[in-house]
């Protein structure tokens, strides 16, 4: 393992320290917690938006804290959901009396820890609502199982719920908008190489020189299928086809997110986007706006994910709203 670290059990602490030092003009760390909050949190009269998860997904989630997006991000150990008490601190730091919405990615750990935090917050008299993002079409959506995972499409939930909250909407309205995004966003990813969790010291999985893993999650979990390395166009087609098969995008306008998993050169992401745009064009799906870059990473994993969000007028307006978040300026 070759990493720029001081000590494997201090990575989160030191990252948070470096992060708030770098961005002290817009964010703050709630003392003795792993919570990054807007500098002006709680914002009076505004619904608080709290998300988070394990670390290792940078710029998620601290990079999405700022006016127009999240009020707080709660950070756990690498790839490990934060604990209920930390999430509770995030909730308390952002509640201005208008209630708090938790944006949770659908992983057992995240759901349980955020649930427990919500219970604790309710016990303290804070109104909390939750939405659970499950955009990953690689995983089957079934009520008998854990259901689909939440991956990069979550960024759109942050952005749109953030804009709606900024407009002064009520907790119920912000939640409804977030759920509309969740209903309309689908994603899927692929890995060419694994990442290495610092404390584990060895790669999470191993692929052969000519193999890729289709349908990976964002924690180095294995995907659904190993296939031979194909051309950029072929891999992209596989992912896009799977996404398009899941909900009907016909004649719609979409936002596109081509997300690098950590080590993929941006050059390759643009080559992927080229094919995404081509396929959508052929299907008569109109691209409203595109983001290409690293938005929800898995440490230094090589690979990418594609997310498509089906838009309506409300979502478009919210997507265009101003954002001061460090990793999503608009």
């Amino acid at each position, binding site marked *: 393992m070759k990493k720029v670290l001081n000590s494997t059990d201090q990575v989160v602490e030191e990252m948070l320290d470096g992060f708030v030092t770098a961005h002290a003009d817009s964010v703050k760390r709630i003392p003795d917690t792993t919570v990054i909050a807007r500098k002006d949190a709680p914002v009076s009269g505004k619904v608080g938006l709290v998300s988070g998860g394990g670390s290792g997904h940078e710029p998620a989630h601290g990079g999405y804290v700022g006016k127009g997006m999240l009020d707080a991000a709660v950070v756990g150990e690498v790839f490990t959901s934060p604990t*209920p008490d930390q999430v509770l601190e995030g909730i308390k730091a952002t509640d201005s009396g208008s209630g708090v919405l938790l944006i949770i990615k659908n992983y057992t*750990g995240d759901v349980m820890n955020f649930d427990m935090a919500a219970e604790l917050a309710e016990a303290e008299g804070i109104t909390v609502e939750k939405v659970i993002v499950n955009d990953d079409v*690689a995983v089957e959506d079934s009520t008998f199982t854990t259901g689909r995972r939440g991956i990069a499409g979550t960024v759109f939930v942050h952005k749109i719920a953030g804009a709606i909250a900024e407009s002064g909407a009520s907790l119920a309205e912000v939640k409804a908008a977030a759920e509309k995004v969740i209903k309309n966003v689908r994603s899927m990813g692929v890995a060419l190489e694994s990442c290495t969790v610092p404390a*584990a010291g060895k790669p999470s*999985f191993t692929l052969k020189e000519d193999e890729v893993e289709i349908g990976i999650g964002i924690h180095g979990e*294995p995907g659904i299928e190993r296939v031979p390395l194909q051309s950029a166009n072929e891999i992209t087609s596989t992912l896009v086809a799977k996404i398009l098969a899941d909900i009907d995008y016909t004649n719609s306008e979409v936002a596109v997110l081509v997300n690098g998993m950590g080590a993929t050169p941006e050059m390759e992401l643009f080559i992927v986007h080229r094919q995404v745009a081509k396929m959508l064009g052929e299907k008569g799906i109109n691209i409203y706006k595109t983001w290409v870059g690293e938005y929800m990473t898995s440490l230094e994993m090589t690979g990418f994910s594609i997310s498509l969000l089906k838009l309506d007028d409300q979502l478009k307006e919210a997507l265009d709203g101003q954002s001061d978040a460090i990793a999503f300026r608009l």
Partner: protein
Amino acid sequence: MIILTVEQTIQWMKEIHKRMEVNKEQLTTLDQAIGDGDHGINMERGFAEVVDKINNTDYDTVADVLKSAAMTLTAKVGGASGPLYGTAFLKMATALQDKEVNQQNFKVAIDEALEGIKMRGKAEFGEKTMYDVWYQAAAFLDSEKVEDWQELIEACQATIEDTRALIATKGRASYLKERAIGHVDPGSMSSFYMFEALVSVLELEV
């Protein structure tokens, strides 16, 4: 007859930590195969915190020790295993509140822990999770009076082996479908170490 004293309970936590330390890499490797590769790290970190907490606290009852462990696991582990084990130990603590720990009460406590995991994780038996091991442990305690605690270890051991053959329907391993077959569930393994640690202190002369 009291089967578990405060001293033994403290020792139980220390024995768990010892096992998590020794098997940290094994648990992480199991989790790399069908999860996200942090289970050993989570468990070792969590029980190190538990031991730390316990070393700095005085306890009057077994329930208090277990409650300390529960709170610490919940607050320090995160992930899926943090809330699940936190809940399990909290439910045990509650069940043993103001009670001496004889076999009957302990059996009830394990039943409660089992219910806690089920409630928190919405798991059923046979979904290839830690629930399977707790389920077997509870079933074992239900069977008459225990003569030889080693048999508890064997029951748990067998369950672990059973998880190997299963498809998972809860937790991260569920994403893998058929590909999870052939791999032991990491949470079942760490639960096994907990019961193994328990037996090692139950058999202690105190």
